């Protein structure tokens, strides 16, 4: 019965990315199908007939910047220019905020550079009252919903106008007004919460759906599995997005299972549709999201979308990627840059020009600068905060006696100065 000592010697496999600092960048193993080759199914197609989508890549913009194929959402030039503007604004905002961190006006920042199409195009494909459960890298959602930059900056600065009272790390926005859920520091927790919110919407006979985002690395967390399980079981009207930007801090996506298969494929295991999309293609992202939203709205349940993109920026201002990946990897990313690609598409269609683009850049830069000026009037992290007592509020709706006692202790201490 036993193979005895004839059994082979076992070996532990540790995944490793193709290139590390010093190696030549090599993306030749990526399989990137040409734009337009993936057919669009009806949005009520049974999941069992959609399995192949998890292994293909939905792309609309081709190498000549034309929009091609079934998934082309045929958006108007106005809408595209608006999308371009929101993506560019996100990028300009990010750049400016990183600078604030560098000069000590805030403690921390996270950019979304190279991933702007994800947040902006997905926001466009949803209704304004659909509920968003983002990770820390979808600031573009707020920007696409035209939320106040000043308000966002006040959170970054933990200043007197910070709506969350200086309690959270910068970028952990919370904006009920535009359906943008409070960002958690704990990865992935928002995923089952989005499913629960969607279940509650369905429970209530509402018509609003939910969407949530996690990174490639975060798919390994329990909450990812909970979300897909509950979404499948209760057919929750939710879109579950995996932003595969190839990296989780210093860890490449293979360490989350991306060496073996796609992240969209996870959906197959639960019989949810799993769409894999060129995340740097505004049109493809929009179209796939629209499809998933339609499916959810029609009580056909959840869709998982893998947004295939690249984290062009460091993980955060605490990170230096040159320690673990070739410095020029971002530049060689075969799917290019989302802003550049949409810009070229518009130019190709005669709806945009380099001059207009330069003007827009200037305009947005001014807009961000003006917002910054206003936000700074309310202080920055480096200016002393003025209401530390608020620290004791909102732990509970009403302050219980033990916190009242601690607040008094605190006051007595302050009084001693």
């Amino acid at each position, binding site marked *: 019965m036993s193979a005895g000592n004839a059994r082979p010697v076992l070996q532990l496999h540790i995944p490793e990315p193709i290139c590390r600092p010093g190696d030549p960048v090599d993306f030749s193993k990526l399989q990137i199908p040409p734009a337009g080759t993936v057919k669009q199914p009806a949005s009520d197609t049974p999941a069992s007939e959609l399995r192949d989508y998890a292994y293909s890549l939905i792309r609309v913009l081709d190498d000549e910047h034309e929009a091609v194929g079934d998934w082309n959402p045929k958006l108007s030039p106005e809408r595209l220019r608006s999308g371009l503007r929101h993506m560019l604004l996100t990028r300009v905002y990010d750049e400016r905020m990183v600078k604030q961190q560098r000069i000590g006006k805030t403690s921390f920042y996270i950019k979304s550079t190279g991933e702007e199409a994800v947040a902006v195009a997905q926001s466009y494909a949803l209704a304004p009252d659909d509920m968003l459960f983002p990770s820390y890298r979808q600031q573009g959602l707020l920007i696409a919903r035209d939320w106040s930059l000043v308000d966002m900056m006040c959170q970054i600065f933990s200043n007197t106008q910070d*709506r969350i009272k200086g309690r959270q790390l910068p970028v952990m926005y919370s904006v009920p007004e535009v359906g943008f859920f409070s960002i958690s520091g704990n990865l992935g927790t928002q995923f089952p919460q989005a499913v629960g919110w969607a279940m509650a919407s369905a429970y209530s006979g509402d018509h609003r759906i939910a969407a949530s985002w996690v990174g490639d690395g975060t798919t390994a967390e329990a909450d990812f599995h909970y979300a897909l399980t509950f979404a499948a079981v209760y057919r929750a009207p939710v879109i579950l997005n995996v932003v595969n930007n190839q990296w989780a801090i210093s860890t490449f996506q293979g360490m989350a299972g991306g060496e073996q298969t796609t992240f969209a494929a996870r959906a197959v295991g639960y019989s949810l549709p799993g769409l894999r999309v060129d995340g740097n293609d505004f049109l493809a992202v929009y179209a796939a999201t629209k499809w998933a939203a339609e499916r959810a709205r029609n009580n056909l349940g959840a869709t998982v979308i893998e947004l295939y993109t690249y984290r062009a920026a460091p993980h955060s201002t605490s990170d230096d990627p040159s320690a673990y990946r070739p410095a020029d990897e971002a530049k060689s990313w075969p799917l290019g840059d989302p802003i550049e690609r949409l810009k070229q598409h518009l130019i190709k269609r005669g709806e945009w020009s380099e001059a207009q683009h330069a003007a827009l850049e200037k305009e947005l830069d001014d807009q961000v600068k003006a917002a910054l000026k206003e936000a700074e009037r309310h202080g920055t992290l480096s200016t002393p905060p003025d209401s530390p007592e608020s620290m004791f509020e909102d732990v509970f709706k009403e302050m219980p*006696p033990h916190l009242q006692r601690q607040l008094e202790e605190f006051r007595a201490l302050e009084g001693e100065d």
Partner: protein
Amino acid sequence: MSRMNMIQAINSALDVTMGRDEKVVIFGEDVGYFGGVFRCTSGLQKKYGKRRCFDAPIAEGGILGTAVGMGVYGLRPVVEIQFADYIYPAFDQLVSEAARLRYRSAGGFTSPLTVRTPCGGGIFGGQTHSQSPEAIFTHVCGLKTVMPSNPYDAKGLLIAAIEDDDPVVFFEPKRIYNGPFDGHHDQPLTPWSKHELGEVPDDYYRIELGKAKIVREGQALTVLAYGTMVHVALAAVEESGIDAEVIDLRSLLPLDLDTIVASVSKTGRCVVVHEATRTCGYGAELVSLVQEHCFYYLKSPIGRVTGWDTPYPHAFEWDYFPGPKRVGKALRKAMED
């Protein structure tokens, strides 16, 4: 008014709140068609439909995660964790999310959920059906923690918990589901139907969270207890002949410190009793508070009677359980010193 055991009282609380508020939704493992392994949700699916009371996948973290989202939407989810021992997979969603959401969003988002879970030993459940993990929740800021000791309180406190706008962990000491078990496991259990606190109004009423109850007045010593141990403490007091005041805390957070301090200031002696393991148990907090606020009144060290710092062993559960003998000894010791 009806005679109810604790299961029926809990069921009645759920029924009453579901009837009053369409936003109350119940789910958890086996709570739907079957009505829960301890039958606390029995009949609710039939009465309110499976939309309002349904089974969940076996994923405590998923149950809490989705409950948080439902609460954010505006519902009042009441979830059951089948045994308190199985709450750990849900720990992150409770501690990092439910507990902190109001704070981190400065009130922008909240999730008024209630977690019901049976706790405590004495039913030969072994180490994974006997735990009392309340102290790890009271250490977390943003959660309320409640443990009733009788049907009347269970119903009134559960209704208050469900209606509370903060997340509440509601522990149900399973050993007293059927009667006020006093620790004498070799004697027959008095059913709740024979106990005055088994008399429960059929309708709506609330017991405010954060108010303790003096269940026996006394002058010589103060006993602080909650859940099953209230009955054990009462038995030990009667058997000892000591004129002890016994306080049923009912809510651990918020805690009714005033009642405690008033009593210990009067008696000058204090014994704290719980079933959970000792080190860093809730008793440690009680001792700290009492010594801080009543230091100059104390005539003897505050005693702690607790489960031992070991898992709850199946065959030796009556050696593990802090029964009347152990409590009695601590009472005498507190009087002697």
